[in-house]
């Protein structure tokens, strides 16, 4: 290389030699590869031509020539080769031509490299590589890409239908789309992906509509899982990775979202059947498959919730129908069965929750909401809170009729406490429970203290002390009463002259813990009067500041009836005893005489006399011997009364306490709401109406659910009583008044 300028034509002539050689190599003709020297010559030619002083600085022309070379090559060689090809052959040809083109560009770029270093920067024109791609893009790609798209899509469709295709070919073809974007994905997306996704949607939509009719739920899910696997595989084999998310979403939508309800609610194979047949694998698959779909689990949880609700409600329905079909003299038999069924239902679905649904909180919530639906139904007038309390009562009465073991009892009580969380009116439950507890403690001999305390502590743990404090007091009272009894016995031993001559025990109850009982001003038989007096004397030695009120209606008396056939011991209430003992003094008494002597109200007396003369045991004879008591009747001791047993219990008719319990609870609720509001206001000082309402509901939720109107009423009342005031400037804010 001398210092002489190279003329353009001369220089270009050198380049052309190299270019022709390159073309020959690409055409597969026998040619030696470029040697270092050859390459250097070509490179230096360019270098020199660009570094000559103007007007011999040929950078621009060379740049143009570079482009022209490529254009020419494409036009003369590439395009004709594609013209008459179709389908896969066209694809193959295109891929090959593109590969060739890239090689050509690579080599030419090497030769013309000097331009890349200075010229393109100076003139802000595209780099040689880019020019190379753009030539191909403009002359080839723009022309053929629709056809290529068609071919690719039909191959994919073929593969979906089960045929084998040349995946490598597809991969290469699709790479062209990507590379044509010159760094952006827009050509791939616009010229291929958009339609690909659309056709995928159509494809799976068709398949889904067919499969949903023909396949069982488990089979459909299996197929769906398979399809999704295949599509993921497709992406990794030849699609661009950016397509994966969009593709999977579309497939999931068509297969699993569109038909979700139809699928899971299939009559013969849907969720309810899977549960029925304990198909743990299929249920787990359902979870697994839907877990991958955004908000997919919501759909499944919803079906799950409805299923559980239906099952639970069916049990409630059963109980309702069974009881109304039968005479209501077996109290609560069907309700017992109902609770058992619901407990079992709960156990079952908790197991599924863990084994199939990964204890996911959506399913926990669904289960909770389902149970809340049917655990708050009234069955034959009995609110669910009462049914549950009766169930617990039944278990605690000496282990229930089935004589359950201690362990089973504990377990069952634990489950009852769990079930209570779904019952809204917990305060109603507490009141029924308290009433029944009172009867157990006072009348049921052999109550198990441990069980009683155990369930109370479980209740306290779950729902707080307010629910159980009174009941705990009741249990303690009874324990203390036993202690008192021994001191009383000692007192009697030490003071033999005051001994009343009868065996008697007194249970002292703390007012406030126990349900309130009606107090009767009963005139006691003289024997009992003595007992009462003696105990009062004893009690005063223990405490001076307490007042005793005697509730004889809760007492039990054992009376020896000297009947002619044989003597029988009668176990009766104190009130019944008072009636019977009158007949020690008189053989015959009229109703009015009895009333006068005992000082009882008519309703109560009629009930008592009924149990003694018209019911199962006719200890007294009534004149006239009609079925019911009237105020003109008279009574006589029945000397001929007998029974096969030597000792009988003469029961009192059961009192329906339901109305009173509900009334009492309703009366107390406003006070509870007041207390909650005041507590909240005291700690917050200032609060918005919305927050006050929601916090009040939250605070009271362990006992019951107050409605907004009730809370508003209490707010109004508390404003009147100057506990709180409305803010002057902000009518929706309240302020605590200390």
């Amino acid at each position, binding site marked *: 290389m001398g210092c002489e300028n190279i003329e353009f034509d001369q220089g270009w002539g050198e380049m052309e030699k190299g270019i022709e050689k390159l073309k020959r190599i690409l055409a597969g003709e026998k040619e030696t590869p470029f040697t270092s020297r050859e390459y250097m010559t070509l490179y230096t030619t360019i270098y020199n031509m660009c570094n000559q002083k103007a007007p011999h600085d040929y950078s621009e022309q060379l740049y143009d020539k570079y482009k022209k070379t490529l254009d020419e090559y494409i036009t003369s060689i590439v395009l004709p080769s594609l013209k008459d090809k179709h389908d896969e052959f066209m694809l193959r040809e295109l891929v090959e031509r593109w590969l060739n083109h890239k090689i050509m560009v690579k080599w030419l770029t090497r030769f013309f490299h000097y331009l890349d270093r200075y010229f393109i920067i100076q003139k802000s024109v595209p780099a040689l590589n880019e020019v190379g791609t753009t030539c191909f893009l403009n002359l080839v790609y723009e022309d053929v890409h629709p056809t290529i798209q068609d071919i690719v899509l039909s191959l994919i469709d073929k593969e979906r239908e089960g045929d084998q295709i040349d995946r490598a070919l597809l991969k290469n073809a699709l790479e062209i789309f990507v590379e044509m974007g010159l760094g952006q994905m827009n050509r791939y997306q616009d010229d291929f992906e958009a339609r690909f996704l659309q056709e995928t949607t159509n494809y799976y939509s068709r398949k889904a509509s067919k499969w949903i009719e023909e396949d069982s739920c488990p089979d459909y899910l299996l197929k769906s899982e398979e399809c999704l696997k295949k599509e993921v595989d497709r992406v990794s084999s030849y699609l661009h990775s950016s397509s994966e998310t969009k593709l999977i979403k579309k497939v999931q939508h068509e297969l699993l979202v569109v038909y979700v309800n139809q699928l899971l609610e299939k009559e013969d194979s849907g969720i309810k059947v899977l549960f029925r047949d304990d198909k743990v694998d299929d249920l787990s698959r359902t979870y697994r498959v839907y877990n991958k779909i955004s908000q997919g689990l919501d759909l499944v949880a919803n079906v799950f919730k409805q299923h559980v609700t239906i099952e639970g409600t069916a049990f409630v329905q059963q109980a309702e129908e069974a009881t109304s079909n039968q005479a209501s003299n077996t109290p609560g038999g069907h309700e017992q069965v109902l609770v058992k069924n619901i407990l079992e239902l709960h156990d079952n679905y908790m197991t599924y929750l863990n084994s199939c649904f990964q204890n996911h909180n959506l399913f926990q919530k669904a289960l909770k909401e389902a149970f809340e639906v049917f655990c708050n139904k009234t069955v034959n007038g009995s609110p669910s809170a009462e049914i549950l309390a009766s169930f617990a009562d039944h278990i605690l009465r000496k282990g229930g009729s089935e004589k359950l073991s201690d362990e089973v009892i504990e377990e069952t009580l634990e489950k009852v406490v769990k079930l209570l969380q779904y019952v809204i009116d917990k305060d109603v439950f507490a009141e029924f429970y308290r009433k029944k507890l009172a009867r157990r403690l006072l009348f049921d001999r052999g109550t198990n203290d441990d069980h009683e305390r155990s369930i109370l502590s479980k209740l306290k743990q779950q729902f707080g002390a307010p629910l159980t404090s009174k009941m705990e007091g009741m249990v303690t009272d009874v324990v203390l009463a036993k202690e008192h009894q021994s001191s009383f016995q000692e007192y009697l031993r030490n003071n033999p002259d005051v001994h009343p001559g009868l065996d008697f025990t007194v249970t002292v109850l703390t007012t406030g813990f126990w349900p309130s009982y009606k107090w009767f001003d009963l005139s006691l038989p003289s024997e009992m009067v003595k007992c009462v007096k003696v105990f009062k004397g004893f009690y005063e030695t223990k405490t001076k500041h307490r007042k005793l009120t005697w509730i004889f209606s809760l007492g039990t008396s054992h009376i020896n009836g000297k009947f002619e056939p044989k003597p029988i011991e009668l176990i009766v209430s104190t009130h019944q005893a008072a009636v019977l003992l009158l007949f020690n003094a008189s053989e015959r008494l009229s109703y009015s005489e009895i009333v006068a002597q005992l000082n009882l109200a008519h309703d109560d007396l009629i009930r008592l006399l009924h149990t003694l003369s018209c019911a199962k045991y006719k200890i007294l004879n009534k004149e006239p011997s009609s079925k019911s008591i009237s105020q003109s009747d008279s009574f006589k001791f029945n000397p001929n009364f007998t029974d096969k047993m030597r000792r009988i219990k003469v029961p009192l008719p059961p009192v329906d306490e339901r109305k009173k319990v509900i009334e009492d609870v309703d009366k107390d609720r406003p006070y509870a709401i007041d207390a909650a509001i005041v507590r909240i206001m005291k700690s917050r000082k200032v609060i*918005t*109406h*919305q927050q006050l*309402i929601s916090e009040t509901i939250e605070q009271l939720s362990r006992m019951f659910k107050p409605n*907004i*109107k009730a809370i*508003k*009423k209490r*707010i*109004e009342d508390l*404003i*009147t*009583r*100057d*506990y709180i*005031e*409305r803010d002057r400037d902000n*009518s*929706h*804010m*309240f302020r605590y*008044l200390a």
Partner: protein
Amino acid sequence: MMRRSACASKKTGQPNSTNPISCSPSDLFRTASSKASSKEMERIDNLFYSFANRSSGMIDPEGIESLCSDMEVDHTDVRILMLAWKMKAEKQGYFNLEEWRRGLKALRVDTVSKLRKALPELEKEVRRPSNFVDFYSYSFCYCLTEEKQKSIDIESICQLLDLVLGSQFRAQVDYFIEYLKIQSDYKVINLDQWMGFFRFCNEISFPDLSNYDPDLAWPLVLDNFVEWMQAKQS
């Protein structure tokens, strides 16, 4: 829980402001105008005594009636209530000297005829939005006649509503009165509910009630009223 109610403390006779006539250093700097003002005060006082009850030293209901007939205004007219407000009178049916002085001085009147002529201006002043809320709450408190009384019975409330709000919100007042008379949940209305109704008239579109939201902090009595209206309209 003892608290001063929104109504100024009453019945204990504690004055809220000092008597402008009591001796003060300013006496030493009396000008001609203050001489004139003391003349005016004399006339005001004399007018007071012309209506006041001899033994109690206050204008009692009889005196007020007499004043009203002199002004040719019915004693149940709302303007009398407005006058009481201007005086900041504490006890319904009575004006004491201090209150009388306060009111008449503020109105700049010292005769009955001047007082009568001042009534339209007074009404305008009261009806200005900035004053009306105060007047509205005053009118409730003014009717609390018993010691520790916090609420007013339904019958009286209905009359008061009509008197105070009737001209401004005729439809709302009429319907609300109708409702109050037939419902049985409330035997009395408290101040909060009273003020709530005024807010209701100002904020809620009537009679469609379309922007009423029972989940907001409206007093329950208004929730019930709206429910009743909606049931009526369907």
